[in-house]
Every structure is written in structure tokens, then in C-alpha cells.
């Protein structure tokens, strides 16, 4: 175990990749919801 204080890791790539996943979920949810609203 190191006694040095841990530096903040760089998580930019992680943020972008989960951002894409989140955006994909949001967009597909609204597409399915639009289909539901549009149909009788």
C-alpha cells in the first residue's frame, strides 16, 4: 500500500463512453415512446 495521496484519475474517456451509452438509451426510449403515441 502506498502512503502517497492518490491523484485524481483522468476519467474523461470513461465519461464520454458512458455518455454515448446514456444518449443511446435516451434516444431509443423516446423513439419507442413516439411509436406508442403515434399509433392508435
Amino acid at each position, binding site marked *: 500500500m502506498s502512503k502517497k495521496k492518490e491523484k485524481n484519475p483522468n476519467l474523461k474517456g470513461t465519461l464520454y463512453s458512458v455518455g454515448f451509452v*446514456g444518449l443511446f438509451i435516451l434516444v431509443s426510449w423516446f423513439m419507442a415512446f413516439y411509436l406508442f403515441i403515434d399509433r392508435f
Partner: protein
Amino acid sequence: MHIHKYEKWWLTFGISSLVLFLFIVGFSAFHYGSHPPTGKVYIDPERVDEIVPFNNPGVHKVEGKEWDYEVVLVASAFYYNPPEIEVPLGSTVKFIATTKDVVHGFQIVGTNINMILEPGYVSEYVTTVDKSGEFLILCNEYCGIGHSTMTSMLKVVE
């Protein structure tokens, strides 16, 4: 507890999407009253042909209700009665359906109408038909040897 800045962003994004989804679903459920087809009405599956309204299947115009037409439908192996449904464009229609023998499905392709018909239960769905054309009705619960031929047609005419 230390949480990374980006993790906080992600948590905010995730939780607010969840709240948004639940709000939209809750709003349509409680404000617009959208719900699955009801199965609250019980009838004797052996006497379907004698029980109102199933003693007279077909498309009926009604007055003084929230809907303009009632489509009374009886499913049995392997056909629907009436075999064809015709309603005018823009009318509000209530589908009232049950089955005489085994479990059948009632799906109108390309619409939100998709009900399971169980012996002894009445399934209902109210909708306003706002698109004209012919819509295939089919059974989507495996009901026996003739399952694949069990179809009908909804015609929305101008």
C-alpha cells in the same frame, strides 16, 4: 466518501433520465388513464354465446357513451367472430373481446391494440382510429393446430 466529478455528472444524468421516464409513464397512466386491457370482468366461458353482449358479436353503433362504436368479438379455435371489422375513420371504438375455449391473442398489427383473451375473462380496449387502411388482426397466443390461420381484418374507412 470521495466521488469523482465526472461520476457526479453521470449520476445526475442517470437519475434525472430515470425521473423523466417515470414522470412521462406516470403522467400517461394517471392523467390519460392508459392501462393494460382489463381482465376484471368475469363471465362463464361455457355460456359465452348466451351472455350479453357476446350473444350478438359484431360492430354496433352506440349513443350516449364515451365511444361511438362497440366491437363485440368472440374468439374460438380457430377464428374470430365477426370475421371482419369495419369502422369509420376518426371514430372512437371500444373493443370488447373474450374467448370460448382456450387462450387466444388479439393483436392488430401496426397499432397499440394487443390483448390476451383468456377463457372466462373480458378484455377491453378503447381507442380512436385516426388512420385509414386495412389492419391485420392475428392470434399471437399459440392455441392449437390452426393457430397460424387464425386471422381477421380491421378496415378503417373514410
